[in-house]
């Protein structure tokens, strides 16, 4: 039978409402089964979809188990590592390990239960350029300090657990409701009870970023300029020039992947990619054409040399690059390496 059967919207609707006869059911089944009818059926059912109520307050079906199953399935999905695949194919030579020996000031020794008078000392942890440093704090909290960053705190944590941060760090804070944990940066404080989060506050960058992975934090601007309560998977960006901040939903793991030695980019513009690569490898980029900053990238790098990373980035966009000769500054020390990125013509 190649003649199409017209779809009776009224019968379809009755069927959906549960008021239908055997005759109606046979018709509806035919409409569904007949391939020739697919478009007409879709139009009729779509009309029903748009008329369908979307407020079920008070009569909601509990779908949390569906969401939980979805979360599990999503978690299993590994990020696509396009660049790494390419490396494994063509360049299976071993990549140099970037991670330098950790520079860690052990503070455990100072955290012996000394009876009064308590000896308090100011401790500073420095993570040099190109290194990531794992640190432990006297209260049991721990974390990672990114390349070119430093942390300062008083060993005894007299009142608050107060940490000063310049640069970027990821914290896993031990819960203690009596002693709030406060991370102070140049522009804002992050107030914590117990949680996991990432703070990036580099003095040479306009923005200070806080990304919350778990728990709850409060971000306070200085002099009461603003207070923000953050929820997991949110990123708060404070712009020091505009003196204002915005909240954005993100995948928080991505912002702390640096602590595991990964550089992860998900649909991010080249400008952002280069900013983070520059921080990681302590190099500076010069873009000769502002348009190329808009190219978007999706990539994961793990322990690659800077030359390889830049080469891979240039493969997927019409750009070329050149490493400038390193200059020696007035103090006799090598300056940051500068890499120029141009549009390929």
């Amino acid at each position: 039978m190649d003649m199409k059967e017209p779809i009776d919207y009224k019968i379809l609707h009755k069927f959906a409402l549960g008021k239908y006869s055997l005759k109606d059911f046979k018709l509806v089944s035919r409409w569904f089964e007949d391939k020739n009818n697919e478009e007409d059926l879709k139009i009729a059912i779509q009309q029903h979809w748009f008329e369908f109520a979307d407020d079920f307050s008070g009569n909601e079906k509990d779908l949390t188990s569906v969401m939980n199953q979805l979360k599990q399935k999503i978690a299993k999905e590994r990020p696509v590592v396009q660049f790494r695949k390419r490396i494994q194919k063509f360049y299976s030579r071993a990549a140099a390990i970037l991670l330098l020996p950790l520079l860690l000031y052990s503070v455990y020794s100072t955290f012996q239960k000394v009876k009064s008078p308590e000896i308090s000392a100011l401790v500073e942890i420095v993570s040099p350029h190109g290194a990531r440093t794992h640190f432990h704090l006297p209260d049991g909290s721990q974390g990672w300090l990114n390349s070119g960053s430093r942390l300062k705190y008083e060993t005894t944590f007299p009142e608050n657990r107060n940490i000063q941060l310049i640069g970027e760090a990821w914290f896993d804070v031990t819960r203690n409701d009596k002693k709030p944990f406060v991370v102070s940066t140049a522009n804002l404080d992050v107030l914590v009870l117990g949680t996991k989060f990432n703070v990036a506050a580099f003095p040479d960058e306009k923005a200070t970023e806080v990304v919350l992975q778990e728990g709850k934090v409060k971000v306070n601007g200085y002099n009461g300029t603003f207070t923000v309560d953050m929820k997991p998977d949110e990123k708060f960006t404070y712009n020091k020039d505009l003196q204002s901040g915005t909240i954005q939903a993100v995948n928080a793991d991505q912002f702390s992947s640096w602590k595991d030695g990964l550089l992860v980019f998900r649909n991010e513009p080249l400008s952002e990619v280069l900013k983070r690569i520059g921080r990681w490898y302590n190099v500076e980029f010069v873009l000769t054409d502002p348009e190329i900053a808009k190219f978007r990238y999706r990539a994961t790098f793990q322990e690659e040399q800077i030359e390889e990373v830049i080469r891979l980035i240039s493969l997927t966009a019409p750009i070329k690059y050149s490493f400038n000769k390193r200059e020696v500054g007035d103090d006799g020390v090598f300056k940051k390496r500068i890499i120029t990125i141009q549009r390929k013509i």
Partner: protein
Amino acid sequence: MKNEQSYTEQELISLLRSGSQYAFERLFENYSQKLYRFSLSYLKSETEAEEIVQDVFLKLWENRDKLRNETSFQSYLFTIAFNDIRKHFNKKARDERYRTEILDFLSDENPSVETIPDFETLVIKLESLIDQMPDRRKEIFRKRKKEGKAVRDIAGEMEISQKTVENQITEAMNYLKKEFGKDRISGLLFFYVFMD
């Protein structure tokens, strides 16, 4: 439900495109109830409606980088749901076919079987009547009608004559005809209405 940090749908979709699980959960909150009820209205099964919700949102996540701002999100969601619902529906209709055929046959005797606007109750009634048949008859009837086996094969399997198989089926059909007769059916449907 709105709070100061709520996003527009466009913003949520851009966030989802960049892989935000937060945005994914918000979109689930906004549309899962509608999707569930809608699927339920065509599939008449809570489990299957939940499966549709899960499948549709999983597909949404897996294809998040293909999302376009230009097409309406609701239309996009509908298209995924429609294909899924259609697949489930056709499978269900195939499973239901033997019941439909029996009822079809019964409507020759009593035309109201075809037009009573309560197909679902008729099916429940049919199943409970089959269930009340003597065990042997029930077994033969199911093999023939539900599994579609040939009379000869059933006879071989059960080590009985083909004539016995045919007789049992005729008996079963006569019994159903009687139960689905004009005076009985109205009473039974009436009973179900009160049960609700």
